[in-house]
């Protein structure tokens, strides 16, 4: 039989771990996507709306 405090600590620990995981996922996902966009930009691939030189448009 666990003490009451152990249940409270376990609850807060699970909550902290889940929220931390969620925040970490959002941050790393954002960083990876931003890096991909920069790589595409560096390769000269730009969105059509982002001022493509005249003549390249379809």
């Amino acid at each position: 039989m666990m003490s009451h405090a152990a249940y409270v600590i376990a609850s807060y620990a699970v909550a902290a771990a889940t929220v931390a995981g969620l925040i970490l996922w959002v941050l790393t996902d954002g960083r990876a996507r931003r890096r991909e966009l920069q790589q595409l930009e560096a390769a000269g691939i730009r969105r059509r709306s982002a001022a493509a030189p005249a003549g390249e448009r379809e």
Partner: protein
Amino acid sequence: MSESSLAIRKFSDLANPTRFLALADRVLPWLAALTLLVFAVGLWLSFATEGDYQQGETVRIMYVHVPSAWLSMMCYTVMAISALGTLVWRHPLADVSARAAAPIGACFTFLALVTGSLWGKPMWGTWWVWDARLTSVFVLFLMYLGLIALNRAMDDPSRSARVSAVLILVGFVNIPIIKFSVEWWNTLHQPASVIRLDGPTIDPEFLRPLIVMAIAFTLLFFTLHIAAMRNEIWRRRVASLRRQAARNAGREQLSP
């Protein structure tokens, strides 16, 4: 210009993903700071207030359990509104919003289930019972997982958007079932004690930290949701740029 048409224009301005990204960049640091601040106050109150005369220390589990459960339902409601946005108004960000919300909702539903279990063991003497409240929240958790799986199974967002929007709306029937399950059926879970027509029946000593924590969790949700929406817009841009690059490469090969 009348006030309502101005409001409509402001809203449709948000439909432009580029505008949304600019807004997200501006809003996110403030929202994150505010979330941290309210969490600091909420956590301090959660441990500074007294324990319950019957439940003792375990009453503190309530301050994470109830806000998680509240978010699990609010997140699904946000998804349902987004699904309407996809089907009725064809708002370009509606599907982005629904898709970004699903993993966040799944996490908070998971938290509500686990903390509920950890509270149930010392207070009810059991980790789990298949009563109406617990079962309907478990079904909500499965629905979140199903929607995430569906989103991942379909590569093309424009095709998966309408399918998942219809599924989200069908699943919305579960939300009132969860809310009223404790009144319609005889459950081990207690009936509502905060959001009731005749006002809260819970002592202010517990209500204060509970409300601050609920606000903190809600702010956390919107911070994460806006950030996840921004990620989803970037993900779609990367995909469309890669398609564009592949098309261009194909054209160069065809024309000598």
